[in-house]
């Protein structure tokens, strides 16, 4: 589609051309988003339309970190029927439906999507593979840390004004609105250099990051029986290290807010709205 934003009638002489002349469809927009992302594309990607009719006309676009039922309701209330999400709508990395037969919640969420003529687009890999990583750029903006980038080629390594592990945690809590973040290490640890691995972080990636010349590693989530144990053990032999687990959504949401701003430059004639996701958890101690 050379110019998918054009909605004018086709000229009479283009009878045999396949040209869509109505409002933009979800598929036209998602194709354009992937192309404009500039990411090379992966042999196997989770990025695709995961719910709804790809030919549905799009009234508005909602961008969110996670297409929870709540996010879908908020999108519908904002008259957005294309939902661009970083995390899956069907509770699995790859939105697999293999085990969803007979699942009442699946049916309820699917029916809500159909009733509201919604389309859900998983936009994860392309946004991460973009140069620089879209999530990293947005998280740096959300934290106001763009000026602290330690190395131009690494969008998530920061050299901060002198602080402590507690100080970093407090700042993340305040700026990201994160109530249930969890830390490993001495709260009084002196901190200058911080490496972030936004979102989920596997064992080997985390082990490598912890062994770099950084004081603290920040992630969304990493398995407790793997890299969390590794971090504890580093500290137990006297290494001065800290680890912060923000929770998945809080660790990527700034990146999707930035995605919404970017999308406004890609799709100019349809409204784009950012839909925040509430923190999933509470801790009893915070309820008084």
């Amino acid at each position, binding site marked *: 589609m050379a110019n998918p934003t054009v909605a004018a009638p086709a000229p009479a002489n283009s009878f045999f051309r396949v040209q869509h002349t109505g409002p933009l469809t979800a598929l036209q927009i998602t194709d354009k988003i992937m192309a404009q992302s500039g990411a090379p594309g992966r042999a196997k990607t989770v990025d695709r339309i995961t719910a709804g009719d790809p030919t549905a006309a799009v009234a508005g676009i909602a961008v969110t970190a*996670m297409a*929870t*039922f*709540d996010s879908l*309701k908020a999108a519908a209330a904002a008259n957005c029927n294309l939902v661009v999400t970083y*995390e*899956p709508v069907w*509770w*699995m*990395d790859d939105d697999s439906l293999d*085990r969803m037969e007979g*699942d*009442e*919640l699946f049916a*309820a*969420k699917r029916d809500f999507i159909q009733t509201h003529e919604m389309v859900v687009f998983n936009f994860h890999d392309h946004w991460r593979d973009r140069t620089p990583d879209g999530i990293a750029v947005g998280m740096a903006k959300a934290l106001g840390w763009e000026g602290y980038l330690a190395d131009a080629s690494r969008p998530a390594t920061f050299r901060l004004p002198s602080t402590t592990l*507690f100080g970093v*945690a*407090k700042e993340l*809590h305040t700026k990201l609105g994160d109530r*249930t*973040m*969890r*830390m*490993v*290490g*001495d*709260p*009084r640890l002196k901190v200058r250099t911080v490496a972030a691995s936004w979102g989920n972080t596997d*064992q080997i990636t985390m*082990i490598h990051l912890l*062994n770099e010349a950084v004081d603290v590693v920040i992630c*969304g*989530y990493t*398995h*407790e*029986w*793997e*890299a*969390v*144990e*590794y971090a*504890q*053990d580093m*500290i*137990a*032999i*006297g290494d001065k290290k800290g680890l912060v*687990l923000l*929770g*998945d*959504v809080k660790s990527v949401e700034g990146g999707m807010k930035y995605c919404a701003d970017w999308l406004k430059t890609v799709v100019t004639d349809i409204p784009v709205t950012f839909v925040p996701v509430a923190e*999933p*958890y*509470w*801790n*009893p*101690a*915070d*309820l008084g």
Partner: protein
Amino acid sequence: MLAAGAAAAAVATTARPSSAGSLTAGEVIERMKQHIGGPWREGGVDGFKAGTPDTVVTGVATTMMATFDALKGALAQGCNMVITHEPTYWSHPDTLTYIQDDPLYRVKHAFLEKHNMVSYHLHDHWHALKPVDGIDMGTMQRMGWMRYMHTDNPRMFTLPPQTLLSLARDFQKKMNDRTLRVVGDPAMPVRIVYESWGNCSQFPGTQFMNTEADVLVIGEAQDWDLVEYARDLVSSGKKKGLILLGHVLSEQWGMKYCADWLKGFVTEVPIKFVRIIEPFWNLRHPVFEINTRI
């Protein structure tokens, strides 16, 4: 009890003053095999991760996870054999392929060797203990839930009526859990609880959430699968809750029970339960409990 018999025979022939001083790690494992109540299966993650079966045991320490801290704790109590439910080397199968040159791997490995220690991974078979999963048993004992257990499903409990908040507080107190996290309405009435201590995957976690239980209590799960499912259930109008205790805190009393179980058939050496610290702190409770001396 063949192995124990052999040990006793060895003691007799070498005329040692007592059997303490000759019990080997391999003999402890052989006795465990006799008492586990089912077949000992090869192919899982269980086995020696440090030390050898012929290591002479000074004492046995059971622990939830063979962290460096736990190893120090075991030594401090005179135990050179550690029986751990979770890995020694930071992955479920204790894979060493990628960490041969890892500096921390080398230090931990050298520490274990220097102190003539054994680290034995007891995961699969402790869950397979008959008649009740060893982790489930220890946790039930800690929570005082034996009388609430469903006869047709040992992972379901009908508790006295309470709210999701009061149940969360009960866990916070009995498991000394600063950083537990809860999904759902704090005021929601709770009667029936389903447990899945430790890690809980999307499947079968979603099935557990769709039982008659009001609340699913687990150790750890991923935010973008089971946790999202739980919040969506709540959003769809279902009265459901999900409590995440943290992986090691949710299972560690099962390893206390393991120490009690071992005392029934390992009498020559001391048996100790080494309690591990909560891995995390939060802003409300900034604490530092890791022993950094080596």
